[in-house]
C-alpha cells in the first residue's frame, strides 16, 4: 500500500508558464508532493511551478522530455519516494486518477494510464486514429499488449526504477520504457484515466511528422 506522503509526482515541463501553476495547484490541493523539471524553459515556468507549490529542478540546457522525466525520477528517489507518478505539464491529466494508479501498484511494478480504457475529452478523430496506430506500432516493438502505449500518466514503484532508466532524451522514451518493462519482465497493469485535450495541449502534442523522428531515435539512439 503506497501512501500520499511517500509518493512524488514528477512533471516534466518546457515553456509551460501559461498552465503549470494551475496543474501544480491541482496536485498540491490533492495532497501530492510534486517536482517540476523545468527543461531549460525560456519563459517563467520555474517561477510559476514554485508559486504553485512544487519543488523545482532546472535543466540549464533543454534536454528533452525523456531526460527531464529521468531527472525528476532521480530527484524523487533522492527525496525518499517509494512510488513515482509521471504527470504531463500541459493540463491533460486529472489528479483524481492518481489514487487508482497508486492502488494498482499493490499488484504491479508499474501502472500505465490508458485513455482508451478511460475517457478522452476533446480529441479530434484524426488524433485518436493517430494514437491508436502509434499504440499498434509500440506494441509491435515492445511485445506488450496495451490499449494505450503513450499515455504520460503512470505510476512506478521505486524498486523498479533502476531497471527502467531512460536513455532516450526525447520523445522515444515512452517506447523505450515499454521495451524495458518487457525486458525486465516487470508486472504491468493498465488503469483507465481521463485525458482532457485542450487547444493548449493539442498544440504542445506530437504530430505525425514527429513520429518519424521518434522512430529514428528509437532505432538509432540506444
Amino acid at each position, binding site marked *: 500500500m503506497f501512501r500520499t506522503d511517500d509518493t512524488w509526482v514528477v512533471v516534466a515541463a518546457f515553456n509551460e508558464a501559461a498552465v503549470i501553476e494551475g496543474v501544480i495547484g491541482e496536485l498540491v490541493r490533492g495532497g501530492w508532493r510534486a517536482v517540476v*523539471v523545468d527543461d531549460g524553459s525560456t519563459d517563467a515556468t520555474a517561477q510559476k511551478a514554485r508559486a504553485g507549490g512544487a*519543488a*523545482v*529542478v*532546472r*535543466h*540549464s*540546457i533543454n*534536454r528533452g522530455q525523456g*531526460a527531464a522525466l*529521468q*531527472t525528476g525520477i*532521480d*530527484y524523487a528517489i*533522492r527525496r525518499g519516494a517509494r512510488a513515482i507518478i509521471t504527470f504531463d505539464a500541459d493540463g491533460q491529466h486529472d489528479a483524481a486518477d492518481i489514487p487508482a494508479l497508486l492502488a494498482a501498484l499493490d499488484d504491479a511494478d508499474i501502472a500505465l494510464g490508458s485513455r482508451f480504457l478511460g475517457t478522452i475529452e476533446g480529441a479530434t478523430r484524426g488524433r485518436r486514429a493517430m494514437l491508436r496506430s502509434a499504440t499498434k506500432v509500440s506494441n509491435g516493438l515492445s511485445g506488450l499488449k496495451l490499449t494505450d502505449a503513450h499515455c504520460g500518466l503512470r505510476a512506478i514503484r521505486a524498486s523498479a526504477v533502476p531497471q527502467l532508466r531512460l*536513455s532516450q*532524451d526525447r520523445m522515444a522514451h515512452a517506447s523505450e520504457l515499454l521495451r524495458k518493462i518487457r525486458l525486465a519482465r516487470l508486472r504491468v497493469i493498465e488503469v483507465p484515466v481521463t485525458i482532457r485535450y485542450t487547444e493548449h495541449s493539442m498544440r504542445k502534442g506530437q504530430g505525425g511528422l514527429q513520429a518519424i523522428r521518434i522512430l529514428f531515435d528509437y532505432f538509432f*539512439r540506444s
Partner: protein
Amino acid sequence: MMIRVLLIGGFAAIGWFVFRRRNRLPLHIMLVFLLLIAGAIAVVFPMLTTDVANVLGVGRGADLITYIAIVTVMFVLVHYYTKFAELQQQVTDLTRELAILRAEVDRVAPPTPAVAPDEQRASERS
C-alpha cells in the same frame, strides 16, 4: 598539370595540420603520413592506381578510388555520429547532475540575497 599541384598542395596542408596538432600517438601520425604519401604517389603516377584496381577486379583506378572514398566517408560519418550521440548522453548526465545538485543546495541552504532584489538590480545597472 594544375590538378597535380592542387592535390599535392592539399595533401601537404593536411600533413602540416596533423604535424602541428601532434597530440596523438605517434602511430596515428605515422598512419596519416603513410596515407598522404600513398595519395601523393597516386597523384604523380595515376597509372599505378589502375594496376591496383585491375588486381582487385575494378576496371579503372579512378573508380577504385571513388569506391574507397565512399566507404571511408561512410565510416567516418558513423564514427562521428556515435561520438555525437555519446556526447549528447554526457551533456544530459551533466545537466541532470547539476540540476539535482542545485535543487538540493537551494533546499538545504536557500539563497539569501544580502540586499533586496530591487536594490541588487539597481546596483547591477549602475
